[in-house]
């Protein structure tokens, strides 16, 4: 079976969702949808034994073979782990949403269609081996996330949050596309596997650093790293199942996936290690620090997600260090990738359950404001238990899985100080310090989240609803996740063997060949070492700070609002819009004169610069005809007529002078032996002057007297420029005739072939009769248009402009 098509199963199923929603109103549509992730999860679980032994599965679908574009599903340890997370948590979220969203009040068909779209997109991202299809699915996650955040589209905040996340993630996605294109040019292939195989050659390419930075921009925007994390807290306007699924367990991990997947290519570079580890760690500190400022349960969780993603990101950065050490399997860096994947799994479990808890609290009390909540412990005992397990795991307490991965995180960060590449020996000490401070704040906000919601005094008068325990169906998913949190603590090595080690091989193929080579054994007790003291310090200092939280939490309010990144984003959006507006108002004056000045100005600049930069200006004097007396006389008349037009006081004189110019042109035609032209020119000039006089006669009275054309220097300069340009172009064109005229043919054959004597007329009607046909058409159209313009009078409607 070609499992590449399984990626599209959710979106195909989504086609039936509106049908089911419209026709089977009595059954919640979610029950049908639930089948899809469950089936997929079971299928992907059957692939586990293959990857656990280090095997890979490839299935491809040729999409545009002539451009070498295909959708390739490549399943190894890393993509299988993500696929299981996506389908597994997806199933739990769908189950949760069945109880969270009301079937009679909500537009479920929209919701589940978007959600299924997202699931396809996410599976595509993690399984794609082809760069272009990876980008395609990547943008599909942005779009479906946009739709899901804006699900309650009648609310302003939803639309704002959706737009903001769209702007930031699509910006990153486009940058990433640039990086992908560079990569495919460097390696001459779109396949990630083939790129990894030629990784050492890529590193010396001049595009390498550009590709690295562009791909990282994509990863950082999607995974909400500093300073791009600002979209994530605003995305909390989405329904809670969406927040739990997209914005904690899956989509925000797409960036982590990208970093992990590209580590074998980019890890050779110090820039990569510094950026991934440094930005990740700073994000971890920043997110945990500002989580305590939040008043909204989901905002706390959003900042905590930002912080935890930063933690995983920094571990992935540290795993790149293994690339630079000979015999790395004997050093501590082998922990980093393991710890990253381990924490990724743990985070998906506990953060998913915490979001669902926040949704339950919101659903059962009507508010998510932590200042109004409190004392729910006795009213909602099951929810409290789940929240406690999730929070304690997040804080890194035993016996929960967060403890294990946090220990490994500290180990990896401490070992970074021993790394002596890339000036790590100077700045390396910052890593464990930031990691420790971040962990302390993580500890505090985890406790803040659970105890300020469930402990303390109950304030029933502040709550919109009377608080009570949630229905059992809503509790199933978070309870299951909480159970996993516990279970993973006790069987970390089984999880490691089945899920983590195959993924580690995909991240660090330079260290390990098969999953069995990863000789890491997780144990809860490491003995007394620096990590132990650091953890102890986290518990003590964190506990102390939490105890005194009320006293110092107000300090957060002192932070100036206009220095935040959100304000920066708002100002940037406002300025770019207003700036673009002001810029176009600057040159779009509405005066036709301005536009003509632009056009003539550019014409002069472009033609003159081309003429002189390419040395095209040449004057030859050997092909000239002699100057004649009559020509000079007519020329004098023409120039005199033109000057009269320019200085004429009244328009009447200008019109008559134009006639004089026209007749001099006719005289030129006579002198230069063009009888037909002279005839036509005389007739047409007469008619034109008559028409001009007609238009002149109908001029409004009030402007008849103000006639004199005032001298304007700017206009004169432009006009002089155009005149000089034309003269120069004419001179050099005449001096550089490359080929003889084709007219010899006309002259020779005019009588023998066409049977005529007047060569011009024969050309017009015989040799080039088509020109004449359409010239007649032009004249006809002009005549019809003139009649229409004079005859057609549509009554004017008053005030029809919609803008008024």
């Amino acid at each position, binding site marked *: 079976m070609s499992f590449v098509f399984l990626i599209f199963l959710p979106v195909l199923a989504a086609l039936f969702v509106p049908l089911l929603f419209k026709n089977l109103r009595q059954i919640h549509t979610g029950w049908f949808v639930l089948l899809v992730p469950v089936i997929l999860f079971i299928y992907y679980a059957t692939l586990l034994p293959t990857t656990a032994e280090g095997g890979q599965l490839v299935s491809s679908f040729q999409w545009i073979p002539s451009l070498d574009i295909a959708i390739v599903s490549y399943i190894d340890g890393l993509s299988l782990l993500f696929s299981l997370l996506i389908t597994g948590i997806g199933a739990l979220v769908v189950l949760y949403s069945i109880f969270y969203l009301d079937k009679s009040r909500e537009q479920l068909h929209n919701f589940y269609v978007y959600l299924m779209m997202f699931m396809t997109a996410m599976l595509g991202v993690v399984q794609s081996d082809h760069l272009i299809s990876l980008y395609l699915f990547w943008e599909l996650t942005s779009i479906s996330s946009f739709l899901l955040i804006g699900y309650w589209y009648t609310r302003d905040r939803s639309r704002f949050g959706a737009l903001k996340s769209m702007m930031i993630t699509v910006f990153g996605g486009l940058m990433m596309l640039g990086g992908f294109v560079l990569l495919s040019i460097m390696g001459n292939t779109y396949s990630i596997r083939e790129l990894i195989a030629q990784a050492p050659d890529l590193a010396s390419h001049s595009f390498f650093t550009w590709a690295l930075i562009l791909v990282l921009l994509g990863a950082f925007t999607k995974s909400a790293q500093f300073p791009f994390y600002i979209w994530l807290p605003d995305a909390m306007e989405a329904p809670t199942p969406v927040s739990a699924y997209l914005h904690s367990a899956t989509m925000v991990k797409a960036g982590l996936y990208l970093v992990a997947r590209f580590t074998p290519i980019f890890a050779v570079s110090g820039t990569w290690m510094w950026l991934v580890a440094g930005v990740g760690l700073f994000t971890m500190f920043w997110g945990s620090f500002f989580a305590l400022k939040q008043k909204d349960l989901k905002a706390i969780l959003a900042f905590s997600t930002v912080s935890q993603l930063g933690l995983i990101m920094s571990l992935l950065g540290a795993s790149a260090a293994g690339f630079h050490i000979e015999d790395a399997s004997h050093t501590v860096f082998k922990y980093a990738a393991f710890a990253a994947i381990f924490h990724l799994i743990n985070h998906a479990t506990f953060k998913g359950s915490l979001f669902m808890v926040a949704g339950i609290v919101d659903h059962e009390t009507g508010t998510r404001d932590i200042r109004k909540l409190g004392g729910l412990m006795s009213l909602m005992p099951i929810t409290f238990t789940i929240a406690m397990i999730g929070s304690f795991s997040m804080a890194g307490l035993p016996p929960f899985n967060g403890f294990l991965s946090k220990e490994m995180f500290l180990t990896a960060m401490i070992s970074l100080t021993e790394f002596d590449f890339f000036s790590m020996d100077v700045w390396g000490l910052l890593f464990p310090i930031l990691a420790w401070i971040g962990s302390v704040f993580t500890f505090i906000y985890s406790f803040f989240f659970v105890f300020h919601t469930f402990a303390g005094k109950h304030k029933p008068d502040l709550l919109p609803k009377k608080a009570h325990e949630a229905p059992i169906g809503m509790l199933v998913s978070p309870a299951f996740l909480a159970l996993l949190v516990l279970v993973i603590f006790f069987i970390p090595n089984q999880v490691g063997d089945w899920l983590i080690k195959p993924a580690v091989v995909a991240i660090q193929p330079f260290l390990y060949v098969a999953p069995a080579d990863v000789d890491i054994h997780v144990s809860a007790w490491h003995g007394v070492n620096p990590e132990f003291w650091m953890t102890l310090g986290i518990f003590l200092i964190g506990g102390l700070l939490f105890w005194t939280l009320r006293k110092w939490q107000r300090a957060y309010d002192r932070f100036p609002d206009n220095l935040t990144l959100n304000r920066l984003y708002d100002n940037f959006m406002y300025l770019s819009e207003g700036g673009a507006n002001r810029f176009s108002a600057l040159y779009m004056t*509405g*005066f036709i*004169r301005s536009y*003509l000045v632009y056009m*003539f100005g550019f014409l002069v600049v472009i033609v003159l610069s081309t003429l002189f930069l390419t040395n095209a200006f040449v004057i030859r004097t050997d092909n000239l*005809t002699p*100057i*004649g007396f009559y020509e*000079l006389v007519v*020329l004098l008349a*023409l*120039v005199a007529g*033109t000057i009269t*037009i*320019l200085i004429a006081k009244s*328009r009447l004189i*200008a019109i008559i002078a*134009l006639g004089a*110019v026209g007749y001099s042109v006719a005289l030129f*035609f006579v002198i*230069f*032996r*063009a*009888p*037909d*032209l002279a005839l*036509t*020119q005389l007739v047409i000039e007469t008619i*034109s002057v008559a*028409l*001009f006089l007609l*238009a002149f006669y109908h001029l409004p009275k009030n*402007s008849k007297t103000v006639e004199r*054309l005032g001298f*304007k220097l700017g*206009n*004169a300069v432009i*006009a002089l420029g155009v*005149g*000089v*340009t034309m*003269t120069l172009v*004419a*001179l050099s064109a*005449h001096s550089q005739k490359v080929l003889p*005229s084709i*007219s010899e043919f*006309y*002259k020779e054959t005019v*009588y023998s072939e066409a049977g005529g004597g007047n*060569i*011009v007329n024969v050309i*017009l009607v015989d040799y080039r009769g088509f020109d004449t046909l359409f*010239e007649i058409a*032009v*004249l006809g159209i*002009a*005549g019809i248009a003139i009649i229409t*313009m004079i005859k057609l009078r549509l009554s004017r409607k008053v005030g029809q402009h919609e*803008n008024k």
Partner: protein
Amino acid sequence: MEIIMSVAIGFLFMAAVYLILSKSLIRIIIGTGLLSHGAHLLILTMGGLGGTAPPVVADGVQITDYVDPLPQALILTAIVISFAVTSFFLVLAYRAYQELGTDDMNLMRGIEDRD
């Protein structure tokens, strides 16, 4: 002769552009008239001003003595087309006077849509 004609054509273009940049509608149309005169003369000059006989077959004239007929045919077409366009413009200007009561281009800016 061609050099003198080139300068004269440049002069015609200059005058035409100067008129087109003015704000009176009728002067703009006069400018386009000058512009087409300049263009027609340019075509004629670029075809070469040599030749001693008009392009009409006559006895006793060498083939090389005829003036080049092709530019003349092109100009003839161009004259008719520019006449059609000019007459259309003039009637358009005439209608604009009738409807708007002005021939000042600066007053014909359409609807102000900026706040």
